[in-house]
């Protein structure tokens, strides 16, 4: 009888450990993503829309997964320095100016992790380390 109790307790402990033990990477991702969604709402949504849909040919959408993936290393620079000139997104041309976002590198990482994993994008986490590296290489 005691044996049975010990076995069931052990089973319970293992089960709990499996459920509660998310990997560090998963926790990092969630932390970035959640903070990023708040930054997105206050700083990006006005122009790029609630669902990243943009605004006709005035504001580019963030749903072009190829653009986001291809320009991954450039995205932090766009936020830090703003963006001007003609860009081709979702097969349309945009030439509006985006002002610098005035965000700290950690905030850039958070909001990019949010955008990079919303609206159909699947970049995975874009963490502070990566953002700092990209920022150093900005032209």
């Amino acid at each position, binding site marked *: 009888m005691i044996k049975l109790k010990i076995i069931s307790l052990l089973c319970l402990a293992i089960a709990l450990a499996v459920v509660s033990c998310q990997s560090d990477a998963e926790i990092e991702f969630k932390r970035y993503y959640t903070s990023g969604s708040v930054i997105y709402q206050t700083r990006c949504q006005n122009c790029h829309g609630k669902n990243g849909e943009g*605004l*006709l040919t005035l504001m580019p959408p963030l749903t072009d997964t190829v653009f986001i993936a291809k320009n991954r290393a450039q995205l932090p620079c766009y936020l830090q320095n703003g963006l001007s000139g003609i860009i081709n997104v979702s097969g349309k041309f945009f030439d509006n100016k*985006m002002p610098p976002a005035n965000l700290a590198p950690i905030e850039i990482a958070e909001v990019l992790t949010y955008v990079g994993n919303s609206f159909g994008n699947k970049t995975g986490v874009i963490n502070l380390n990566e953002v700092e590296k990209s920022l150093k290489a900005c032209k």
Partner: protein
Amino acid sequence: MKKLIGAATTALLLFNACTFNTADTQKLPIYGEREPVTKTVNGKEVTDTIYHTIPAFKFINQYGDSITNKSLDGKIYVADFFFTSCPSICPVMHRNMLAVYNEFKNLNDFKIISYSIDPKYDSVKVLKKYADKLNVQGNTWWLLQGKKDETYKLSESYLVTRPEEDAKEQFIHDGFFILVDKQKRIRGSYSGVDEKEVQKLIADIKTLRTEPEQAEAK
């Protein structure tokens, strides 16, 4: 007994409060200062109310055409103040204004007027390009530019906050959509950044158009 009368009065008042503005008598309020004017018509004294109205103005639209208050005679219109290079609230305002535009663009007694508060940058060419990007065509939605002083002064007659410039030379304005009737009286004001308020604006425009005074006005 007194208590009973009190209760009955309260109940009646509440009932009246609830039935105010029911379907058959629906009418939008008229905003702004008003003054009674007594005049003599056919030997009889008549008291009339003079309402606050939008004064005369003269601006240029995105096609380079001259637009005055006369261009809006016989039109119900929605006005707002914006500028094309605005990074903050303008995109969301015009995202919402597009909903109003798409709902009413085929009516010939309806207009949208967006006054630029940055006429130095917002030339006719810039306004036309902006309109193109929003897929705004024809003559339902006019983007106007004129002298900055006049625009700022006019903004006061729409009962919106006079725009200001902060240290960064960025314009600050409050993003209201103002509903004006055919008699150029203000009939509503709605936050242009709030989707729900803009839905109310669309509903109110429909209500306004059914008022006899509006339907008959040319």
